[in-house]
């Protein structure tokens, strides 16, 4: 079924009887050509592009819970391509371009909204670093602008300009950055994949891998063994757990990242903003909630919940930057499990097991990467070679010394 304004009109006039399921709930078949483990944003996008762009068939997505229940359903919805390093920037710019045409591509309004992102700068050194970054972005064909203090003031005069511990000296802006309705991304990909014959199998947890003579034969699941020629794992948060079934240890730790939303407020912040002197970033959703976050809690965790020190730290940053929000209220906090990699950058690569492929290590940048991650993973699965924008995302980069360390923090996952 194709969605359109006309369709809504027709359904409204006929009692909405004609809407059909957004996707089927098929029973798993005995075997597939491709199994994607993980029905989150990246897994669903992978299946969608495998079917649509790479013309592959006999594809299943196995999801232990409900579709879109991973980090695609619990992030702060930001998209941007303001990366510094050559290993990252082409990939994220590719992703941003895919976002820009996504809704028409999968016929689902995911509310891709390019209202701009600004990274506030508070020191001369930060401005120099932002200049390096902005130029790197532009060399890669992305957009960037350096704003001075007055330009920031013109956008948000109610920020703390007069009494700041770390005064605002300017900002790096990417106008094409913005937000996307996160759940709708999962649903749009799911619906698009289902329409192209992909079996989306919910409540189907992978519990093991059948590997013989170095080759994958399929996966053991809570619903029995399912054979596959190729298996792609995209289970960020649980990467170490699933890849352990193949005997692999990963350059990844699982950490909790908390996110926050306030009660609904009349429009206050148009775009996305990051505070350069505290751990705080914020945007305002189309429903009016301030959606914000900060740093990870900093300890290994699979609990999907965090603790008070970080909650307070994030909100202290918010109050320091935006003293007008004191009378707004925190509505909800939640936590997701982040695949924190050893250099802060992801992995999309083959594994030592023939037919087993891995996609993970997204740290807390996975949402914005969803379209390109799906596309590049599908490319790797279908063609056995990396997509040109994802050539740096290899396992062996740590052995070779080709880390992609945007923050320069080294092998300390909780600092990325």
């Amino acid at each position, binding site marked *: 079924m194709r969605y359109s304004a006309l369709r809504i009109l027709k359904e409204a006039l006929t009692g909405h009887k004609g809407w059909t399921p957004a996707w089927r709930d098929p029973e798993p078949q005995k075997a597939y050509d491709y199994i994607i483990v993980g029905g989150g944003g990246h897994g669903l996008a992978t299946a969608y592009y495998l079917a649509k762009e790479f013309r592959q068939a006999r594809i299943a997505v196995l999801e232990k819970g409900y579709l879109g229940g991973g980090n695609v359903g619990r992030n702060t919805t930001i998209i941007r391509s303001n990366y510094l390093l050559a290993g990252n920037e082409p990939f994220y710019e590719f992703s941003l371009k895919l976002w820009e045409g996504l809704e028409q591509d999968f016929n689902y309004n995911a509310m891709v*909204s390019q209202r701009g992102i600004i990274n506030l700068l508070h020191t001369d050194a930060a401005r120099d670093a932002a200049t*390096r970054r902005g130029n790197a972005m532009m*060399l*890669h064909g992305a957009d960037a602008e350096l704003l001075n203090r007055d330009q920031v003031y013109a956008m948000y005069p109610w920020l703390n300009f007069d009494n700041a511990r770390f005064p605002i000296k300017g900002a790096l802006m990417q106008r094409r950055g913005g937000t996307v309705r996160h*759940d709708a991304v999962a649903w749009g990909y799911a619906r698009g994949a289902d329409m192209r014959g992909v079996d989306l199998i919910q409540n189907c947890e992978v519990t093991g891998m059948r590997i013989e003579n170095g080759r994958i034969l399929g996966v053991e699941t809570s619903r029995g063994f399912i054979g596959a020629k190729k298996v792609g794992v995209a289970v960020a948060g649980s990467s170490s757990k699933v890849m352990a079934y193949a005997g692999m240890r990963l350059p990844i730790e699982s950490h909790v990242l908390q996110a926050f939303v306030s009660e609904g407020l009349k429009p206050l912040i148009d775009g996305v903003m990051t505070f350069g002197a505290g751990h705080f970033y914020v945007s305002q959703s189309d429903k009016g909630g301030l959606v914000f976050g900060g740093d990870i809690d900093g300890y290994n965790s699979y609990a999907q919940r965090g603790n008070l020190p970080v909650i307070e730290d994030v909100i202290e940053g918010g109050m320091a930057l935006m003293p007008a929000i004191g009378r707004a*209220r925190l509505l909800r906090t939640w936590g997701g499990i982040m695949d924190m990699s050893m250099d802060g950058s992801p992995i999309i690569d083959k594994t030592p097991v023939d037919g087993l492929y891995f996609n993970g290590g997204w740290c807390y940048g996975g949402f914005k990467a969803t379209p390109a991650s799906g596309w590049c993973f599908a490319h790797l699965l279908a063609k056995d070679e990396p997509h040109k924008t994802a050539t740096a995302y290899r396992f062996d980069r740590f052995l070779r010394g080709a880390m992609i360390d945007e923050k320069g923090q080294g092998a300390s996952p909780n600092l990325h």
Partner: protein
Amino acid sequence: MSQTNRISGGQIDRSKSLRFTFDGVTYSGHAGDTLASALLANGVRLMGRSFKYHRPRGPISAGSEEPNALVELRSGARQEPNTRATVVELFDGLVAQSQNRWPSLSFDAMAINDRFNTFFTAGFYYKTFMWPAAFWEKVYEPIIRRAAGLGSLSRLEDPDDYDKGFLHCDLLVIGAGPSGLMAALTAGRAGLRVILADEDFRMGGRLNAETLGVGDQSGADWAAGVVAELASLPNVRMMPRTTVYGAFDHGIYGAVERVSDHLPVPMAGKPRQTAWRIYTKRAILAAGAIERPIPFENNDRPGIMLAGALRAYANRWGVAAGRRVAVFTNNDDGLRTATDLQVKGVDVVAVIDTRSGGPLLAGIRHLQGAEVIDSRGRLGLTEITVRSAKGAVETLRVEALGVSGGWNPNVSLTSHHRSRPIWRDDLAAFVPASDAPAGLIPVGAAMGDLSTHAALRGGAEAAAQVVADLGHGSARYDLPKAEDAPVAITPHWYVKSDKGRAWIDQQNDVTVKDVKLAHQENFTSVEHLKRYTTLGMATDQGKTGNVLGMAVMAELTGKSIPQTGTTIYRPPYTPVSLGALGGRSRGKDFKPFRLTPSHKWASEQGAIFVEVGMWLRTQWLPRKGETEWRQSVDREVLATRKSVGICDVTTLGKIDIQGTDAGAFLDRVYANTFSTLAVGKCRYGLMLREDGMVFDDGTTARMGPSEYVMTTTTANAVTVFRHLEYCRQCLWPDLDVQIISTTEAWAQYSVAGPNARKLLQKIVDQDISDAAFPYMGAGEITVGGLRARLFRISFSGELAYEIAVPTRYGDAMIRALVEAGREFDAVVYGTEALGVMRIEKGHVAGNALNGQSTALNMGLGKMVSRKKDAIGVLMSQRTELVREDGLRLVGVKPVNPAEPLKAGSHFLKTGAAATAEHDDGWLTSMVYSPHLGHHIALGYLKNGTARIGERMRAVNLLAGTDTEIEIVSPHFIDPEGERLRA
């Protein structure tokens, strides 16, 4: 205005009248009222508008679960959006406005949405607004965003203060209803340190809202008596107006105390609110239960409320929400509303009971097996339509309807660790599972014990168990007599209707139809249902609606409710103001200031300061007549290079390292060797991370055979010390080495320039001639007999020393240095001049020391000794890190000396297109060199060392500049180091 709906009784102080305004109209209420009870007393039922359809709404509850009656409280900078009128304690002069309506609450133009509701079904926006693609940001979304949100912020700085505090106790009791009071009493009498917290301003919970007796008293009187006793116990802390909003790990609870919200403005010196962290050995959750409605067509009109709320307004506040009322129930508890209101003299028109059997009320028209199927009244309820068991339909004129669909135990906090509650058929409700947070014990109604007796017993028993567990013996308690009626409920989840809309989530306008559509489109998992329809995502987080939505979905899928899913809650239990969680960390107090020893002197001189981490450092010191910063900085640089300059370098990290293995230890943490360093000498040290990247640099001096003094960069002072402790304790635990940070212990000044020695010689007691104190010398000296340290090291390339005195002499030292320097025209220079001189000399710092660079990148590859095992050495030699064409530190100057450079510009070959494949590196830092008379920069350039002399471009696309440059040695002045050794 008169309080037309005020009736007798209640726990309000009728001797105290309070005036307040709502939407500009002045009303009066009494002390003890909430804003909602006072408005209802004045006959005002319409208090808000719903989010999507802008439907007129009044309160459905009398507590914090309220989804409808949200107002903007106060005005000006204190304006507080989305405040529940049901929990606002009335004060004299209170001002409130309705929100999310235009132009007025009674006439809201946005209610047009309601007319078009058939288009605005759940998820409709996912299916449209896609064409043309550019229209989303430009047309559709701006319209949606303008309509979004509920209340508004003033955009002014919140004028009130907020505090944070820490409390410790043996037992935290959350909720002061019958079970909580009994628990606190039992534990308090047994001597435990108890905190009793309740979100209400009056403790007693449902006892205040019911006519049920406890012992031989009314419930409210019994509660007041217990509260009085508890307040008299020194080991019990009573915290009314305090919401325990979150259960965190290991017995830590977040709570917010509304210290001043019941006052027009906080009292002098008092915060508006205090955010507490409560550390407790055990917690008893006595949070009660929350009633749920029965959705029926048009069940959202002002005047339709929960049956328990209707009788709470009557019993606690002496308010009849209407003069003619009816009750719609599927359980016995709902019947209490009818009897209580009738006793109060309110006209109870009918009780519509969905059950066919059960007790029949006397003296009230009690329709069994009947349903309310519709209602009327544009801005407030005027009549309901009732269908009898036999299908007869009649309309009843009423102003208020109390609805009871049963009670949900308030499991919120028990699910904060993601424990999923379990279903109990006999209650038709979820109760906490046994894997609730460790140490948290749910009791009373929160555990599903809904009778007063069971609540009292549950509280007492749980407290007695805690007393025993914590080793305080066996607690004694007497249970007062109380009703013990069993829960009698026959689930009736909603009233079926073909066409109409029956609201489940009132604030977000989620109706039974929306749940049906979600089912039709296969959004059947509870999470999909929530996210697709927005059920439970409003400011009440689904406290009254979630279970109903699940029940409807369960019916549609043919599964049981527990098979359909469970509902869990995330912190906070109710929304918490951001101000409270931010506390005092705002404005200039966001982070502490660290001030250098020369700060006071520099302030007197009118210095310009700059934030360096938490430090404030002198950036430059303007002199009279200097209007532009470069004038000051150029002067400071030139004066230093010509004669002598003084700079406060106290912020550099300083670590004393002692022990017989100190040298061996340093050999392992530095890439170069220190064990061979002679006593009385310094050496520049390069510290790597284990991944081979440069971590930090600085000079380390050997003060004695087993005594070293290390310096670190300002930025890494803390992390280097942490790393050294890690190496010492975790990697080589038996090395004889002790370390201590002395950053704050020593005030340290750099004295640099050709006259540095002459100046210092006036200050120090010892001979510091080149022979006595050669280049890179270090040692203990005295200054006027006082202990001091002297290092002959230089960051500027000049003859230079750093002199350290105990911090308490730092102020005297700067003054002495300046005084001694007068004859040399000495200057004090700041961080800008420091930066100029270090770049002129080619030292890496700042953005070149970025955690992404190796010693080889910095031109320091030879410092990495391969003869010993030091942190990071092996990994620094990986293939990609030792590539010939890798980045190397170079100097940069503009071909045209008049042209400026900009740090962050990228290197491009002459003629190369400005694209990534031609990106050859970037300029890390740039200054104007007054010494050379043009801009200079350092940068990382691919294969840079081999390209010295090459002409290329520094391109800054952000500014649109493209500057021809020449690559030069990074050492712009005195490359042979003759000045240093002078």
